[in-house]
């Protein structure tokens, strides 16, 4: 693992505040995930890939922006690993690297689907850069 990768890995672990080595690779996060088919790297891979320091692969993963932050995986993980937090942490790494070019309120379409949950809109602000 290169130095940078290791540092990133440690940084992610410190951001999430738990030890991803608690993961016992049961796959319940992926099994639970409603957006699994959209993802290239599945949630259950995140814990081991972070531990192994395969951060570059994760940084380029589509998964980061397919995750709905619905927290179903967090709810159901039997090992208190909270995969969504891991994904969020990797995503933060990407966003930090990009600078502060987050989505501005102007970019929000005038007419939003009223069914769209508020949480999803807020999440969108955080997630999608220009």
């Amino acid at each position, binding site marked *: 693992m290169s130095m940078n990768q290791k540092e990133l890995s440690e940084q992610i672990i410190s951001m999430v505040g738990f030890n991803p080595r608690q993961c016992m690779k*049961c796959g*319940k996060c*992926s*099994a*639970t*995930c409603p957006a699994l*088919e959209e993802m290239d790297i599945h949630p*259950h891979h995140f814990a081991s890939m972070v531990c192994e320091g395969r951060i570059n692969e994760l940084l380029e993963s589509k998964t980061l922006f397919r995750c709905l932050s619905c927290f179903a995986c967090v709810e159901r*993980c039997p090992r208190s690993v909270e995969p969504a937090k891991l994904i969020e942490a990797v995503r933060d790494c990407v966003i930090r690297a990009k600078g502060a070019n987050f989505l501005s309120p102007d970019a929000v379409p005038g007419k939003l689907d009223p069914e769209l949950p508020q949480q999803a809109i807020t999440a969108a602000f955080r997630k999608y850069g220009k």
Partner: protein
Amino acid sequence: MQRIGVFVCWCGSNIAATVDVAKVVESVKGEPGVCFAQDYQYMCSEAGQQLIINAIHEHKLTGIVVCSCSPRMHEATFRKTAEKAGINPYMVEIANIREHCSWIHKDKDEATEKAVILARAAIAKVNLNAPLQPGESAVTKRALIIGGGIAGIQSALDIADAGYKVDIVERSATIGGKMAQLDKTFPTLDCAACILTPKMVEAAQHPNITLYTYSEVESVKGFVGNFDVKIKKKARFVDENKCTGCAVCTTKCPSRKGGNEFNCNLDNRGAVYIPFAQAVPNVAVIDSTRCLHFKTGKCGLCEKVCSAGAIKFDQQDEIIEEKYGAIVVATGFQISDVTKFDEFQYTKHPDVITSLELERIMNAAGPTKGTLLRMSNKEHPKDIVFVQCVGSRDNTARGKCYCSKICCMYTAKHAMLIREKYPDVNVHVFYIDVRTPGKNFDEFYRRAVEQYNVDYIKGMVGKVYENENGRLTVQAVDLLADRRIMLETDMVVLAAAIEPSSGVKDIASMLTASIDTNNFLTEAHPKLRPVESPTAGVFLSGVCQGPKDIPETVSQAGAAAVKVVGLLAKDKLVTNPCTATPNELMCNGCSSCERVCPYGAIDYVEKEVNDHGKREVRRLARVNSALCQGCGACTVACPSGAMDLKGFSNRQIMAEVDAICK
């Protein structure tokens, strides 16, 4: 005044290389009480011990100090030596001048000086030593088994066969426990009832065994060899001696709305019932919470139909008091609560069941008479999904952090039995790991895969929901293929974690036995004393100590029985002589000591004392030396210093402090 001999060991060069042993000998000669001092190459050798024996005889020694290795090494050796020479073994003290001195200090002067100080401390202590005699207590030749499952039955039979009286206390109306609910057993697939019921009958008929079913332990007092136990025999409202088990009442009872616990509430039973056909004792019991007679004062149908006249609505709970020498805890397990796992729809959909429920469905005496049916529509299923580790290996608040150990094997059994009986049913098992350590276990699992085509999929199930076809969709991931699986099925069977039976906490606190964070009873030593609890005279049998399968339970039950027999075989128990003793004239009776005693060894008596001519009745602490393990917690809790510890008395320790600070 003691006549003390000091023996300084060279331990070859281990001590002699850094400690000037001759100087130690010289330095201690002027110490109070010392009338002999000598060094020798190996004190622990035959010759060294003989030297001590000779010196004891020659100099009429009353106390011995050996300056040598750690007392944890050879204290017992030198105590025996002293005993051989005719002095009390507790008149020996060890000054540890090897591990605590010669091995850690390089400077010879420094090490020698320290060795002298350590020797002086030991001498100061011996000066205050008193001969100690291990106490003796009688043993009641009767054992109590708490729990009448296979563990309890097996322990009881083994103890009874060895010739001792045994009582089993079982809180439900029949013995048999969880095993009686099982259909078949792995890995042999023999019928559980076929192997269990003969044992139940044997226990019931054994001349040395008394069964107290529908009973609970009310209180436990006393100590190893001498437990005083109160057992509450709950009112059955049926005269056990008159009831013939004809079951007429059970069929006539009009109150049939309540669930049948034996069938996991998958069907109903009457308010008067016999748990199952082979119940032991085969006697009906009236559930007063459901019985119309108790609720409305009317009905009484059972009374009318009972030809034996066994119904007794006025029966009362009965308290039985009995003395026991040993107690075996065999309280077993229960299925943990799976309702917290709402992703599996257990509470919402009748076709999502636990494995124990499946056992009942598969059993000929079960709610479906042994036919595999969906509980929702009573149709034959086409697909069945098994979900492993529901609540096991789960460190969140919902689950248990441990592996329940038996689920992998019973799921393989279920899968195999279904495929055997209904080859048209597809069986899928979602697993995290398949754990099969055990004789013929892995072979058994492989047979399920290879011969019965059971579909094992690695990956936990994410969620289960009812789909538009009226079937269940299981959403999961095949971790090996790394792909999503959406599987339509008719039934979902959850391998729920097992946990210690409710009520084990109360039992543990009554017995002052400790439990771990999962409520499993703690063993005295995890490897070397696995069937004993830390409380003397209390033994552990079966799942109450940790998850295990039937053969393991039976072997542990046997092991516990052997320990019990070993205890009951003794006429007298020898107790640790280094126990706490209260000074009656100083005791305030304030209860401080009782509160810190981890063994419940202290109680209080009203006793007349003669305090320098003043006679009065006082409340005094009394230590049961058979229970006391000599920790000394009470000696410090006691404000007046009335409580002292033999072998480590206040004065002895203060004398050591004094000697060291000289």
